[in-house]
């Protein structure tokens, strides 16, 4: 059985968070990440899908295996929603800062667990978070 190189899934309820974790676990293990890196990637995905569910209500998680053009192979996950957006990204990246519903660990924590994290957000339009981890 071969896993495809990319895919996407809708995040709209709590159970989708579990499904996202399962999908990311399969993709990351399939690519050859070790158990600790798989756990890091799955945990970041859990935090970021929960952010979508908590703050935007619904959104999409896209995943992609990066094996072209770059000397390294890796995994890229994109979390996109059309929720309220983040007014102050710098503030949102501060550990412990939360606009109310969470612990304030999701964004700064995910950044520490991954190799790359990029956020694009427009207040009132939505948020896109892209994370990457490279295979070493």
């Amino acid at each position: 059985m071969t896993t495809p190189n990319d895919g996407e899934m809708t995040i709209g309820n709590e159970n989708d968070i579990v499904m996202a974790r399962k999908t990311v676990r399969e993709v990351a293990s399939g690519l050859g990440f070790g158990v600790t890196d798989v756990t890091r990637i799955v945990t970041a995905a859990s935090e970021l899908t929960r952010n979508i569910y908590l703050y935007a209500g619904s959104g999409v998680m896209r995943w992609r295996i990066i094996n072209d053009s770059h000397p390294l192979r890796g995994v890229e996950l994109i979390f996109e929603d059309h929720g309220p957006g983040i007014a102050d990204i710098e503030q949102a990246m501060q550990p412990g800062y939360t606009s109310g519903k969470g612990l304030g660990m999701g964004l700064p924590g995910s950044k520490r667990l991954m190799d790359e994290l990029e956020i694009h957000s427009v207040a009132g339009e939505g948020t896109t978070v892209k994370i990457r981890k490279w295979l070493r």
Partner: protein
Amino acid sequence: MAIGTISVIKVRDILLVTVPPDPDDDTVTDLQESVLRAMEIHEARGLVLDISTVETIDSFFARTVTETAKMVGLMGGLTVLAGMRASVAVTTTQLGLKLGKTLTALDVDRAMDLLETKLEMRGSS
């Protein structure tokens, strides 16, 4: 997907709960309620949460477990978190999660020993 029901086992005056490998939020919330109810019914003095099969601990899970330990504490009980995997320990720490003053043990055996010692030190109630 089926939600795993949480079973609370009573061993002497200690409650033993095995957390399923990949619990959803409802299961984690259900765990808290089941544990507190069992504390009341069985007049338990301690709780061992076996997390040896748990593959991912995110902020929601960590918060609920910390809260549960606090609530059990208010009811006069001690909580020990048993069997955290190495990969989970690394991830939990790097994510920045704090498990408060929750006691921990390498496995359930050691957790039971730890609880017995701690409860003896407190004196019998």
